[in-house]
């Protein structure tokens, strides 16, 4: 159950970032509310999951899903750059952040 809510938290985080993107396309209150609901529910599911999953592992997985998912959605849906250098640098930031969360 905790793993399920953790993955759900990651997916809601991707949704939140997608709403940040959506806001730059179309600025309205509905998007702002969806954005807040997305991140809010994501954090709620994350903190529930962290009662059962070790903190470093839980955070690392949540961050990983969020960063990878939002980068992919940005490239596929919102036309963000697919430049290989950008992808390599995002992977560098992501891997080091995950590493730090696992060893800390």
């Amino acid at each position: 159950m905790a793993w399920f809510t953790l993955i759900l938290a990651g997916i809601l985080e991707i949704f939140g970032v997608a709403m940040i993107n959506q806001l730059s396309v179309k600025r309205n209150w509905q998007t702002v509310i969806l954005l807040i609901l997305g991140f809010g529910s994501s954090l709620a599911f994350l903190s529930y999951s962290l009662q059962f999953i070790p903190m470093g592992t839980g955070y690392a997985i949540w961050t990983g899903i969020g960063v990878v998912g939002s980068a992919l959605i940005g490239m596929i849906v919102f036309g963000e750059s697919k430049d290989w250098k950008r992808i390599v640098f995002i992977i560098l930031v992501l891997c080091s952040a995950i590493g730090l969360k696992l060893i800390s």
Partner: protein
Amino acid sequence: MNINWIKVFVAAFLEIFWVIGLTHSHDLWTWTGTVILIIVSNYLMISAAQVLPAGTVYAIFVGIGTGGTVVAEILFFGEPFRWGKIFLIAVLLSGVIGLKLVTENKSDKVKKGVES
């Protein structure tokens, strides 16, 4: 450096403090400060992501927040120092600098017309 990059870095810097606040807040004042920092930090991040690519902004925001929190825990809260952590922070910073160098504003594209 353009204003949106300043927003990203200030947002990430403030994130370090609210992450610390989430674990170390103990009374009404520290919790109030933490909540204010969360709001300001996320507002700046979202505002920067209206012009810079959101995927890039979010990766940097999360990355610097994580690296900065690890440094703060070592400096101020007695977490053990390890070379592995310093190495990972160096990798992280090189990724952030790289992203800064290869990123273009998306504002031109938005003006061209995805708007409905």
